[in-house]
């Protein structure tokens, strides 16, 4: 029987990586929960409300997208549309080439990871430098982020110190403060030399066209203080209806992501800088990216488009804690990734069809989600899809259910199996060539077979 890739990966995660991921996620999750319940009378009401608002947006994108486009244009921003990853990358390149720009500083944006923008630009001779400390380390290591909010949760300080030494950022020193200071010194000159600052957007208000970007390090702010052109890559699902809704979402986002009341920098952009302001972009471009989101919208898993990328579901997920982010082979790991990644793969769904299986369906993700996405239900729908589309990765390791369904729909056959199963108590079951039975018994004993005993008791006892 074929094995599940994520499970295989988990078996080889180094002990210190697993310990770091476990500690990092557990600590953040516990702080998050304490903070929300200490500070609000009914945090679950907030999650439910935020979910309803995002679901409304998702189901009314046909109204909100043209509305926000008009607002952005009125604010002086230029609006672009990209149906695919390739188009999104090409749009960024074109904006840069039109300005004769060759250097970009990037803030952390998951959609840029999704379209592999930095790689695309570098191949075309453009420097696209990550400025978020974690993302910068991922970039110099030619690695991939393993968490939505904590990209290098899988790395320890010694590995980082070695990377810095290799890149000429100073002699080996694994003190986190020294590492941070060195990045500060190196990157601030990069900001000042760059032509373009690229960000994502956490939210866009359809009412006013304001883009909201949150960071803790100040890298996005620095990008947009030092450069003359701002490009924002925005997934089409990032809208909220009204400015006032930001009051709800900002209250939930940082608490869910990092157990902060607010991130250090919450930026609202609605156009190029004021003429009286010496620093900042004279041009602002917003690129709305589809890249299979409309396919997700058409599916019965559209609730996943509510996601605000806080990472709370990763932090609470027992599978993510054991497997770590790279096990998901995707830009979006964890429970949300197990839903989103196969869907965003579009025609290549089968390549990611195993991910929806990588869950015990415990539902902890749904319980912490700030937009109340019913992740287990969506995982189940995708399991059904994987089965219907005969995706081999999805079925790996799952016992076939055909025979079981025949027995379980025939009471006579069921009873025969119950009483016949008694034989299990006398057989060396670990040698029975049923893969599921063997997989079970490799690590766990099997309880004694008591098939039919309850029924016998029920039948023979004196009714009260």
């Amino acid at each position: 029987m074929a094995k599940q890739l994520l499970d295989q990966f988990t078996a080889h995660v180094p002990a210190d990586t697993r310990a770091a991921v476990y500690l990092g996620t557990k600590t953040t999750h516990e702080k998050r929960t304490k903070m929300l319940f200490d500070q609000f009378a009914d945090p679950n009401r907030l999650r439910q409300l935020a979910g309803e608002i995002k679901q409304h947006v998702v189901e009314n994108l046909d109204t909100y997208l043209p509305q926000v486009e008009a607002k952005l244009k009125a604010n002086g921003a230029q609006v672009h549309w990209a149906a695919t990853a390739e188009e999104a990358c090409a749009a960024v390149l074109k904006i840069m080439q039109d300005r004769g720009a060759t250097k970009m500083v990037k803030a952390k944006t998951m959609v840029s990871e999704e379209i592999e923008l930095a790689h695309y630009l570098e191949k075309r001779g453009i420097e696209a430098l990550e400025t978020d400390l974690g993302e910068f380390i991922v970039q110099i290591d030619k690695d991939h982020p393993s968490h939505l909010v904590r990209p290098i949760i899988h790395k320890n300080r010694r590995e980082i110190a070695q990377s810095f030494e290799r890149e000429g950022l100073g002699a080996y020193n694994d003190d986190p403060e020294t590492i941070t200071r060195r990045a500060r010194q190196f990157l601030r000159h990069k900001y000042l030399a760059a032509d373009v600052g690229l960000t994502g957007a956490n939210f866009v208000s359809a009412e006013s066209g304001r883009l909201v970007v949150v960071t803790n390090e100040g890298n996005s702010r620095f990008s947009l203080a030092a450069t003359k052109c701002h490009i924002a890559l925005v997934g089409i699902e990032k809208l909220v209806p009204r400015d006032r809704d930001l009051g709800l979402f900002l209250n939930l986002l940082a608490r869910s992501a990092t157990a902060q009341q607010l991130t250090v920098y919450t930026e609202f952009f609605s156009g190029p800088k004021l003429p009286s302001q010496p620093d900042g972009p004279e041009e602002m471009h917003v690129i709305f990216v589809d890249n299979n989101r409309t396919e997700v919208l058409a599916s019965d898993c559209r609730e996943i488009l509510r996601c605000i990328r806080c990472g709370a579901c990763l932090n609470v997920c027992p599978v993510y804690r054991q497997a770590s982010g790279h096990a998901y082979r995707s830009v979006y790991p964890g429970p949300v990734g197990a839903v989103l990644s196969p869907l965003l793969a579009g025609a290549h769904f089968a390549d990611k069809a195993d991910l929806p299986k990588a869950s015990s369906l415990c539902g902890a993700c749904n319980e912490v989600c700030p937009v109340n996405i019913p992740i287990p239900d969506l995982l189940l729908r995708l399991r059904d899809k994987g089965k219907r589309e005969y995706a081999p990765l999805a079925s790996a390791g799952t016992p076939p259910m055909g025979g079981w369904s025949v027995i379980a729909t025939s009471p006579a056959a069921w009873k025969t199996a119950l009483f016949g199963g008694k034989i299990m108590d006398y057989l060396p079951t670990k040698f029975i060539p049923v893969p599921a039975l063997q997989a079970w018994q490799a690590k766990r004993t099997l309880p004694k077979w008591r098939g039919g005993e309850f029924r016998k008791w029920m039948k023979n006892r004196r009714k009260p």
Partner: protein
Amino acid sequence: MDLSHRKLPGTDKRVQLMATCLCDAFYADAARATVEVLEYIGCRLEFPEGQTCCGQPAFNGGDWAASRKVVRHTVRTFAGELPVIIPSASCAAMVFHGALLAFEKEPDLPEVRQLANRTWELADFIVNALGVRTWPGRYDAKVAFHRSCHSRGTETGPAALTLLSSIAGTTVVPVGEAEQCCGFGGTFSVAFPNVSTSMGALKLEHVRAVQPDLLVSIDMSCMMHLGGLAAKEGKPIRTQHLAQVLRDSLKNGGLL
């Protein structure tokens, strides 16, 4: 999950029992205890002989076509208007939630919903349908309670704790990271053996840290996994279904 609309029993307290396939095959005493406990509080039980399984294994495994066959069998077997009581949060959630998902696009969704709307997990039923909040008898033990994951969003967890902590002699000790899954997850436990057993090992660590006399749950599936892991390690733990504790409390108090 909004379960507020669920059907209450009539004054004759007639109910149907879905014993679950796991009790049918392995945990006969948990099913027996369920009967004894329900009868003690005045319920009149019907046990539809044709019952097999709720259909969850195939549903979670992704084979919804196979699952729907079994759900349809279950719907036919539990025909009528009586509340259906299940000594498993997981099987109960399959009947009142999972089955509805699997039948979203099926013409017989109303029949499935009719069963869903009268299905109860045992502890939830005792506390919230019958209003029993203190349990008589005596049971001297330090108990760790494992809230099974399929009880999230339902009243089952609080109900089970209400009953357990009301028993004379019983102390419920809080277990670390109680919201974390034990790693069973049905077919997940065999398709993802490494992740599943790592999760189980962590859960056992938390349980052992508080040194309980026994581990109690409302789902024997979690107990089969955790108990099986512990036994394989050569450090077995005692596991019981909530119904067994309730029944033994009655026995110890001379009430049964």
